[in-house]
């Protein structure tokens, strides 16, 4: 019909005879009129989710199981290494970030920054169980790692020596050594089930004592093994806090050691100490130009 909004007028004349306001259809004008009449048209709309045979992966065989376990163990040990950066700053909240990005700027903006401003106020109050939480590193701890410097470009050498820290934070590096990971297993679901079964069988109580004894042993051992380094650190650093939060592997053993609520945690209520905590993020106090990206 005419696009100018007029139904009627001259258009009506051309449209053929009208019957009660509807146009009469000529006998053979519709496409389906010519088809054979036996056909029954299926007027149903297509199914929104038609049945679909989901292909199922075969169960891994023994060799593949082994390969997967080795990979997972490797990954776990990687995460244990001082070169691993724990922090995930990538904002995964879909509601606030657009899924699609255009250009590098937007991608960069996705990586949220962790600074005083981004602290989650609801979880920021120190709690007892936080001492068991993994200490997360925002920068790899290069100072304890022995590098083969000749294979690094010269511009990175200072960083490798741990001299890339701002002056007030710089700490003397201890003896460098390549620590082999202590993690020897990555739990599989089956392991957990087996464990559970064993637990239910009632063996648990007897082992309790032995476990405790073992733990004690470990502690003694670790202290003897890492005693030298410990002494070194505490000798250099007046600031206890730095030692506890930034010290490398011994942070973990410290956490394990302080089973009881010791005097360290008294600092929780020290307001100044509390705000100092923000300094922990290494993004902010970065060498020459850290601040400008995060203000």
């Amino acid at each position: 019909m005419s696009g100018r909004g007029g139904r009627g007028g001259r258009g009506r004349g051309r449209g053929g005879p009208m019957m009660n306001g509807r146009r009469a259809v000529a006998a053979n004008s519709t496409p389906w009129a010519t088809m054979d009449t036996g056909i029954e048209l299926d007027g149903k709309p297509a199914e929104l989710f038609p049945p679909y045979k989901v292909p199922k992966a075969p169960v891994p065989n023994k060799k593949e199981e082994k390969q997967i376990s080795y990979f997972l163990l490797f990954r776990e040990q990687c995460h244990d290494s001082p070169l691993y950066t724990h922090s995930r700053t990538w904002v995964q909240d879909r509601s606030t970030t657009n899924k699609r990005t255009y250009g590098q700027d937007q991608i960069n903006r996705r990586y949220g920054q962790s600074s005083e401003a981004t602290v989650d106020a609801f979880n920021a109050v120190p709690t007892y169980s936080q001492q068991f939480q993994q200490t997360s590193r925002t920068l790899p701890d290069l100072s304890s790692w022995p590098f083969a410097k000749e294979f690094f470009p010269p511009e990175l050498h200072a960083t490798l020596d741990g001299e890339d820290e701002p002056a007030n934070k710089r700490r003397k590096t201890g003896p460098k050594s390549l620590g082999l990971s202590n993690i020897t297993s990555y739990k599989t679901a089956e392991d957990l089930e087996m464990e559970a079964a064993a637990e239910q069988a009632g063996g648990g109580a007897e082992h309790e004592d032995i476990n405790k004894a073992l733990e004690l042993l470990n502690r003694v051992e670790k202290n003897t093994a890492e005693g030298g380094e410990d002494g070194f650190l505490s000798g250099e650093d007046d600031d206890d806090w730095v030692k506890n939060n930034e010290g490398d592997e011994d942070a973990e053993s410290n956490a394990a050691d302080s089973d009881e609520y010791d005097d360290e945690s008294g600092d929780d209520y020290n307001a100044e100490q509390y705000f100092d905590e923000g300094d922990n993020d290494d993004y902010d106090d970065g060498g020459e130009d850290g601040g400008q990206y995060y203000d």
Partner: protein
Amino acid sequence: MLQVTTSLAELCSLLVDETYGELPSRIFSILLKKGRSTASQLKEYTAMPSRQLRHGLAVLQQHNLLYYHLDKPNGPAFYEANVEHAYNLVRVGKILEMVESTFGAPAKDVMQNLLLSGQTRVADLMAAYQEKIDRANNAKALDEELGITSLEDTDGVNGDSHPAKKSDLIIKSSAHLNSVICRLIEAELIDLCHAKTYETYDDIYETVEKEITATHFPGGVKGGKQKADYQKKLAEGLRQVRGESKSLKRKLEQNGLASKRRKIFQDLDLNGGVKQEEDSDPVLDPRQVIRVNYEKCSVELRSRRLVQFASDVFGDITSYVYGVLIKKITKDMPRCRLDPLVDVQGEDDEVNEPLAVSTDEILDSLKTSIDLSIGLGKPDWSKISAAATARVVEHAPKKKLHIEGATAVGDASSDEGEDSSDEEEVDGDYKPAMTNGVNGVNGMNGTKVPPKERKMDRRTQLRQHLFLLSESPQSFVRHSGPDEWTIDFGPVLTALRESELDAVIEETCGTQGLRLVHILRANGKLDEKALPNLVLMRKSDIQQKMLEMQRAGFVHVQEVPREPKADVKKSFFLWFCDVAMSKDQVLDTSYRAMVHCMQVLGTLREQEKDVLSTSKRTDVRGREQELMRKEYFERYSHFLKSERMLFHQLMKADELIAALRDY
């Protein structure tokens, strides 16, 4: 080298993220996106503070994920991403499993630590192991003092925090470690880092080129003869640079004992054998820096895949024989694919000529416990045509003539057309070869085959297996001379690739689709109108199937106009099937599938964030069952299960990718 597509780039940065954390992965993905850049450029791209950037770069470099190039000794470095190494992270599990099954648990432990620490100075590795050994010794001493002896059963419960006891210490002493490293270097699985290790291939090429022009051709390269000479010098220079990483291996071999020791290593039980050899190993220079050689690893993985392939086709025993042969042949093969520039031109180099292994050598290294009579049919001798048996032996001289052609074809592409031309060549050469080899037949087969009725000696059985392998359409083995066997990797791998592709096609388009593809492969290009007659299917069915497969990228169509003025109705439509193109398609799909796996894992982690953070707590770790609430624990174990499944899928996809791309 590796063609980096968007999906591959995404996959690699996800893999780096998974293993080494977010910071390196961000830098890595930018490097992939922007290509070669300096630190200041990277800073601009990533909007990171430069201190953070430098730390990230250091980590990447430590893990061998970067190339860098210096124009001036103290100038800024140009960084480039090492995609191969990043991708190989997904193969870590396979590599470790492979090392364990071939070299034993100690080698696996060393390999794992090398993979963990990236490039490592020998001295540092030694020191780390020494520390571990000392600690274990102390623990043992303490144990004895305290009188706690039977603690084995608690080990599992407390495993994570508890240092290894002397009894389960894998590397027992630094001499042991030394010998394990020597062994791995001899197997080329460990490489030496040298000055040019971290330069890209192009940079090395350029420096070598410059050097050669300056020293040998100051006036420029003129004329055909000079050009050939120049190419030869260039290849030699490149080979020399590449060979530097093997210098340690050569040194070990010069020591003279290497080959003998290797034999002991193979024959004896792994734990028992090591003891005797430790002393004879030269002490490695502690200043040397070593790293894992992924190229050789993929050669080893390829061998395993081929043995698997043979076992799918023939069965276990035959594939075992094949495994022994392949091990002998690939022993000194540094990489899966030859570099066209470096390898092909050196005529004197042994790289070109695949190693031939005699039947006796294979027989010597077969375990006696293997019963070779299994897996062989025993037809009546009268039913075996003499001509056919004779023909088997004939293969040697005839094939020798076109080795070069065969390997070149295999390397360049696996195209259908070339395959058929191959066939013709074979037929053409066949006649003269016949007369050549007759003597050989009389000499060897004549004496052995007829008299014994059923009982075959071991050697004959072995030969039967090898004949079986060489006669198969996949051409696993080539009978290169009287009683000598070799493998042409080109044709076997083409067959492997085709079978992998077939599996994918069957899975996506059904058996009918696979049948159509097979017909197309056999016939080359086919007109649309000729298809129904040949295929014996209804025209509409064919069209539907072909369209489906075209969408999936397995078949392609070409329009050829009949007249200069193209008319759709009159022109021919030729269907064809291009393995290379469908290979790219399948690769891309696999990359996407892998990326998807990683993304699913990320989402799962996000969902189970609270559970995971609980399980990572130092007091909970290792005692999840005791300390976690039941609901939490169930969620945790469910997460672990799905994680394993996802990685399983990842590795399956990698298997396909490896077969299509890397082998």
